[in-house]
């Protein structure tokens, strides 16, 4: 579609479109300027200070950043833990949700029931989920180890073992593969026109061909979206480690955001926490930019000149 001059590409129309663009985007623009920009700027300022929220900030330049990168033993631990979690969990969860969505899509009967059953775990509140999994993963009488016992395997100490604590949390997150993510994928799968499947059929292709050459490209915008988002959000993992392990054992589940929380609200060291936050933002920006770069090669958009 690029390069084809359509009647509406003249200057007047372009100006009108620009004005409309601002108009349509105005709710977010207003909201951002008021509730987004100011707090972000403030938090950056605080990252250059020592500040405990209740008293005046003390400007210290980049001292916080220097301490973080050069002298803080926990920073690198937190980074390692978080990277592990984010990059192990994301592919697993996305693949899981996609696979489930595809399966449910093929179930002509009882789809509604299946959708609900898989969706249920994701609406249980965070505290209950944590209690639940603490019980499930209990080394002695938890369901998982008991089940393993029945087939003769002695299960690991799960959350109480420094080696198994992160895999435990990854396992726990798999329970969410039926949640909002799956619903979004389901919705995306609906947008695939059926006649394209018929084309593959006629060419003699099977399920895998259909998936690879029809489904995947059509849903790639949504898939891409979710990979980007999932990475961003899993870099901010917090609740599970806060409620269940408190960062242990041996700091194996000390995630970046948990460390940030300790610094902000236990130690009241909001300046340091802000520095942590901005480093995370920087890293997320880089990772996301890379993904957008790579995305140009495999994401397929219908509309012209996007993204």
């Amino acid at each position: 579609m690029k390069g084809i001059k359509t009647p509406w590409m003249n200057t007047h129309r372009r100006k009108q479109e620009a004005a409309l663009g601002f108009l349509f985007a105005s709710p977010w623009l207003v909201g951002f300027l008021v509730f987004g920009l100011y707090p972000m700027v403030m938090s950056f300022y605080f990252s250059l200070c020592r500040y405990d929220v209740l008293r005046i900030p003390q400007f210290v330049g980049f001292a916080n950043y220097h301490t973080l990168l050069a002298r803080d033993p926990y920073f690198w631990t937190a980074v390692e833990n978080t990277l592990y979690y984010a990059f192990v969990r994301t592919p697993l969860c996305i693949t899981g949700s996609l696979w489930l969505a595809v399966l449910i899509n093929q179930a002509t009967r009882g789809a509604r029931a299946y959708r609900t059953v898989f969706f249920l775990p994701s609406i249980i509140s965070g505290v209950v989920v944590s209690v639940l999994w603490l019980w499930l993963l209990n080394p002695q009488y938890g369901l998982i180890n008991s089940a393993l016992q029945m087939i003769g395997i002695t299960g690991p100490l799960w959350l109480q073992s420094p080696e198994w604590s992160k895999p435990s949390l990854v396992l726990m997150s798999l329970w969410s593969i039926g949640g909002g993510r799956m619903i979004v994928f389901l919705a995306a799968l609906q947008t695939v026109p059926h006649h394209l499947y018929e084309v593959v059929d006629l060419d003699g292709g099977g399920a895998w061909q259909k998936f690879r050459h029809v489904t995947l490209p059509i849903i790639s915008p949504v898939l891409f979206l979710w990979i980007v988002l999932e990475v961003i959000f899993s870099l901010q993992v917090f609740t599970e480690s806060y409620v269940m392990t408190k960062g242990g054992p041996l700091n194996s589940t000390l995630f970046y955001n948990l460390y940030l929380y300790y610094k902000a609200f236990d130690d009241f060291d909001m300046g340091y926490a802000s520095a942590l936050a901005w480093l995370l933002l920087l890293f997320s920006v880089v990772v996301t930019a890379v993904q957008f770069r790579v995305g140009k090669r495999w994401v397929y958009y219908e509309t012209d000149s996007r993204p």
Partner: protein
Amino acid sequence: MKHRRRQWRQLGVYAILTAFGALFLIPFVWVLSTSLKGNEQIFTIPPQWIPSRLRWENYMEVFRRMPVLLYLKNSVVVTVLQMIGIVASSSLVAYAFAILRWPGRNILFGVLLATMMLPMQVTMIPVFVLFKQLGWLDTFKPLVVPAFLGGGAFNIFLLRQFFLGIPADIADAARIDGCSEFRIYWNIMLPLAAPALATVAIMTFMFSWNDFLGPLIYLSEKNKSTLALGLSMFVGQQTNEWALLMAASILMMIPMVAVFFFFQKYIIQGFTMSGIKG
């Protein structure tokens, strides 16, 4: 031959779905059964799946401990307002980012994404101070107004991707016919994106219903509390009352399941109005 193979495959699909479904249900069943137990029976070895006596009075106790109906009303008000605001404003903004072209769009889209990358722990206090200066403390406004102002980067991003997936021909044709942009948005794009909108509605509901921190710091009056805040009262410094916690959670889940049930048919509605098929 092919028909037979397809039949086997279908069977396989159902088998896997049912097996996994059962697996997913097990912990949920445990939550349900725990809600009907006395506290001593919860952590027994081996675990009891069906309590010897179903203690329905746990649920009565929940109603006794907190004004469920009042909190329910507050939760509904906040959540419905948020849903309306988010669906309306995020679709508008997503349309701007996906379809319309305007200067600075791509940069601002990057900024939009960046807002999701800063953990809210460090922006929480400045935002709180802002709301205080606006005089909105102790009202629902801090929870509801931001929903109407774009509704969150996540939702905008989601809808933008959906809009991008819709073939351009339709909108182009409408434009050539002289349709205003708003008409295109309202009459064409929104219906086409119905699955996405329903998804946003569901996810907004999920988040809002369970949101505890917002109500905690912005609402001080007890009669403005939401259900999520009420639920957090069951978790004391030393929580012993797991059964009540589970019962309260189950109660909170019921509306969510209902909402999900209602909205999910829109997701599957599909493209009845599009000109894509053929």
